[in-house]
Structure formats: C-alpha cells, structure tokens
C-alpha cells in the first residue's frame, strides 16, 4: 500500500533513529499520546456505565492483540483463544487466593498461560491450515473440560472468587480506579507489541507468514517462531483474562465457549489482521455492537417492528446474528479491516483537495 509511505511534507528525518520511530508519523504519535492522556481524565467525566465499557474494551483488547499476533502477524489460526483468556483468569484468581498479591498474580498468570499455550502450540505449530484449526479446536474443548473438572483450580462449576486489585495497600477495585489499572496494562502491552514488530523476532514472525521458504534461508527457524507466536498470544490472552477476573471479582467457566473464541477472531478481522491498533479498533466495535443493538431495541420498543420481531425476547439471538453478519460483511467488503479504512481516510485528508 503506497499510502504507508505518505508523509506530510516538512517531516524530514535526519537520523536513522528518528526514522525508526514506533509511529509512522508525528501526527499518529500525537493521536496516540493525546488518546492516552485524555483517557486518564475519563473517570472524571464519564458515567460508570461508559467506564465499564472502556474497561471491557481494555482487557478484551489486550487478548485480541494476542490473537492478532498469532493470526494476523504470524499467519496461523486459532479457534480456541477464549480458553487461554479463561485460563489466565482462573490462574490469577487461584494465585491471589493462595496469597500472592494481585498485581503479581496477574503477571504470573500471564506466564502460566504462556506455558499452557506453548504446550498446545508445540504440536500445533507443526501443522498448517485446517489441521491447525482442528488442533486449536481440541485445545478449546480440552481446556473447557479441564475447567469444569479441576475443582482445586477453578472451583469447578461453581467458579472461583477473585480478590480485588490492591497495590501497596490501596484498593483499586472500583470502576473509576480499576480503569487506570487496565489503562496501564493496555499501554504497556500495546507498546510492547509495537516494539516487537519493529525488532528482530517480530520481523521474523511476519517473514514466516509472508514467505516461509525465504525466511528459512535468512536463518529463521520456522518451528521456533510458529511456536513462539502461540506463546506470546497466550501471554496476552492470559493477562487479559486475569484483568477480567479481578474486575468482575469472580471467574467461571461459563462463557468461555467457542463462540467467545470466534468473537475474538471477529474483533481482529473487523479491526484488521496484522494491525496493532486495528486490534483495539475491532474490540471497540465488537463491544459497542451489542450495546448499540440494545439501544436500538429500547428505542424501538412498542413500535410495529418490536411487535413483529419480539425484540425483547429475541435480543440475545439478534446480537449473535448481528455479530456473525458483521464479520461476514467485513470479510466481503472490508477485508483489510477498520485500521486500513482509517489509513485511507488519513491519506484522503492529507491530499485534500487533490485526492485524485
């Protein structure tokens, strides 16, 4: 895409260091920094409802980025991302209940999930395409079953309590405070991924995706990097899940099904495969979509449409159908995702009014 190379005039780079920045342009950097700074003030302005949506976007966005590293950047597939998200939640709740401070428990849960991800990734990274999809499907069902049976770890069907987040004795568990915890993790995890992709191992991951034969000739060990992608992806899923568990205060096996895994896939398809910021955009979209249907349904309540479709009873089904429909529409009309559309819009305004 030639647009990637568009830079505003006057933006000259005089050293390689200036040219290797994490953001494509100064404007992009300003956008991101301003976004984070503005987010810092969010708890002062927004209602608890909006904050809870933002927190949800945060922990899901971290997990979605993990899946994007596996699918978008390394070119593999996983239809079992939800169980790694779940494993992180259970692991962190478990560790916290054993007396580990919650912030540490979250990080350790991420590492623990990485180990589990590698366990499944080791054989999975040796197969491709349909076989890989089935191998990850197996992970989905095996771990889901494990969650139900391993009562010592998950509390079985009853679920497990997850301690509230405290740091040096400060309670950071309410929406307005936990928001900062999630924001911190989002910034760190997203910066980490952006850095990874501009250094040796990140490039190797993309190289394996784009042309594995020549990647191999460049000295890239294919199995090592395919497995590594599983590890990194599970780490992100684990951290996301752990943040979720301590937010809700409770972790249960319910909802960790294949539908949830597919929703993660939906997020990165909608946001843009192989795009870091796209992972976040897709998550925002996926979180707001069911909310929007809810708003729409209540706006229409009592109307003719409501009477015909029975919106109140059918809402959950409508939401699922809408998610499926959106994924399909994006695959057909916007296969490069929201991130690509965003780049096009930026390019349009940069060239305006000489866009043609």
């Amino acid at each position, binding site marked *: 895409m030639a647009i990637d190379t568009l830079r505003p005039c006057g933006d000259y780079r005089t050293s390689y260091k200036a040219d*290797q920045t994490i953001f494509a342009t100064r404007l992009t950097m300003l956008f991101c920094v301003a976004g984070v700074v503005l987010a810092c003030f969010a708890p002062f302005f927004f209602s608890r409802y909006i904050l809870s949506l933002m927190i949800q976007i945060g922990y899901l966005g971290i997990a979605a980025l993990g899946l994007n590293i596996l699918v978008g950047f390394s070119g593999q597939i996983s239809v079992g991302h939800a169980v790694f998200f779940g494993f992180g939640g259970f692991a962190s709740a478990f560790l916290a209940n054993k007396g580990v401070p919650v912030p540490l428990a979250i990080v350790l849960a991420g590492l623990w999930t990485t180990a589990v991800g590698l366990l499944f990734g080791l054989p999975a990274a040796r197969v491709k395409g349909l076989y890989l999809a089935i191998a990850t499907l197996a992970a989905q069902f095996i771990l889901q079953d494990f969650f139900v049976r391993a009562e010592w770890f998950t509390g079985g069907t009853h679920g497990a309590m997850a301690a509230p987040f405290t740091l040096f004795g400060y309670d950071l568990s309410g929406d307005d405070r936990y928001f900062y915890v999630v924001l911190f993790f989002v910034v760190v995890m997203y910066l980490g991924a952006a850095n*990874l992709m501009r*250094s040796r191992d990140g490039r190797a991951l993309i190289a394996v995706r784009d*042309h594995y034969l*020549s990647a191999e*000739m*460049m000295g890239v060990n294919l199995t090592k990097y395919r497995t590594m992608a599983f590890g990194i992806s599970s780490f992100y899923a684990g951290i996301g899940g752990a943040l979720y568990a301590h937010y809700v205060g409770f972790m249960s096996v319910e909802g960790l099904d294949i539908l949830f895994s597919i929703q993660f896939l939906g997020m990165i398809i909608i946001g843009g495969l192989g795009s870091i910021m796209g992972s976040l955009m897709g998550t925002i979209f996926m979180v707001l979509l069911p909310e929007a249907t809810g708003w729409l349904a209540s706006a229409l309540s009592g109307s003719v449409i409501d009477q015909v479709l029975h919106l109140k009873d059918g809402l959950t089904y409508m939401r699922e159908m809408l998610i499926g429909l959106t994924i399909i529409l994006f695959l057909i009309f916007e296969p490069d995702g929201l991130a690509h559309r965003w780049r096009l819009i930026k390019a349009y305004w940069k060239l305006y009014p000489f866009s043609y």
Partner: protein
Amino acid sequence: MALPAASAGANPGTAALLSIENISLRFGGLKALSDVSFHVRHGELFSIIGPNGAGKTSMLNCISGRYTPSEGRVVFNGEDVTRLKPNRRAAIGIGRTFQNLALFSHMSVLDNIMVGRHHLLKNNFLTGALYWIGGAQKEELEHRRKVEEVIDFLDIQHVRKASAGTLSYGLRKRVELARAVALEPKLILLDEPMAGMNLEEKEDMARYIVDLNEEWGMTIIMIEHDMGVVMDISHRVMVLDFGRKLVEGEPAEVLADPHVRKAYLGEDDLDEAAPAALTA
C-alpha cells in the same frame, strides 16, 4: 561494509569454497540429478546453464538445504553440510535468491532487508518488546546503517519505505538480491536473477553481480538463461542436461563444446548467443 574479502575479485583463488561430490537426487521415479560433481573456488563467479527441467534449481536447493540429495555430499568451507538444516546455513555463509519472487510482500523494503540480518542480530522477543531498555534499539540502528549501505549499493533508496508487494518486477528482484547480500554470505546463490527483465534492467543487474563478486569478494553461483550475460561475466560455466553434467569449463571452452552446441544451444542459435552480442 566489513565483508570477508576472500580473494579480491576477478582472479579467483584455487582452493574450493564449495565441493559437490557425486550428488544424485530422486523424486520417486524421476531422477532430477544424476551423479553430479563440481567445485566452486573462493571468489569465483560460477554459472549453471541448461534447458528447462535440467535440474539447475534442484542443484541450488541441494546447496541451500531445501532438498537433501539421495546420494553424494555437499562440502562447504571444509565442512560436510549435506544434512545441515536450511535455517542454519545463513550463519555459515550461504545466501540465496529464488527463481520465483520470494519477498515478504507485506513488509517494507527496509524490513525485508533487515530480515537478512536476522542471524547477525541478537535481540529477541523480550529485549525487542522492551526496545529502549535492553539495547535492542542500539543494535537495530547499527544494523540499519549496514542495511543502508546495501540499499545504496543497489540503488533502491527511493523505495525503501514502500511495501515490497507494490514494487515492479525488476525492483523486486533487486530487493531480493539486497536481502541476500545483507546476510553477508561467503557464497551467494542466484536463481535466474535476470529472468523477465528488459535489456536495461539486465545490464544493471549484471553490473551489480560483477561488483558483488569483484569488489565485495563474494563467491557467486548463478543460474541464468541469457547466454550473452552468462558467457560475458562468468569465470566458469557448467552445463546440466537431464540431471547430468554435460561440460564444465571457461565460457569459451563451453561454447566450443560439440555436446553443448547440439544439446543446448542448437547449432543455429550459436551466432545469436555469442558473448559480445548482448552486454557491454
């Protein structure tokens, strides 16, 4: 660039950098290579020619580790590498380009070439993710400098930020060469580097290859169908036909060989393929 100036250029040494010893390669019933042996000396520009399906690419694949020969040995720099994994060969000094375009098409030209530095870089996923803290930034910048030298050499400055998939065919071939050069290999394998190029692009490419050999001291094995270029720039040429070695020798000897005239060139084409005809 700090490259091992094995033996500066046009006068190849006498010691063999690569020895191919009695290699045979079978695909089921098909024998792609039968009992082929040859040596490539330090600093040599060695060409392999032959009709389609003669086994030229298969030969390169045996050297680069893509295929393991059914019989015979590949000895590189005194070491038996017949069964060495392909991804270990960059580190011992073997680089290559492919007959069909093989760039990482969604990466920028710069990143493509940086992947060529993979085996020379030390930062990993951890130090990479921390970038500013573990020294990854410093290392990346050092290697960026080396990559820029390669970019300057191949005159691709203007496309360094473009994503590789958007480039013209000729440019892609050049970027692929740049990526292989960035490995700092002792031996570079080029599979039809000029295929599909127009005359001007071919001349440029020929000059880069000669410079790599003479100034950078790289040993080169090249597969090429353009007889004019081959005869003009190679030190020695080997002819393969149906997986067998027909002849091997200096361009003039090869051209004079009756087998070659008959089997490969076809008597009538000979005038056209004469050395001076194509390149300056």
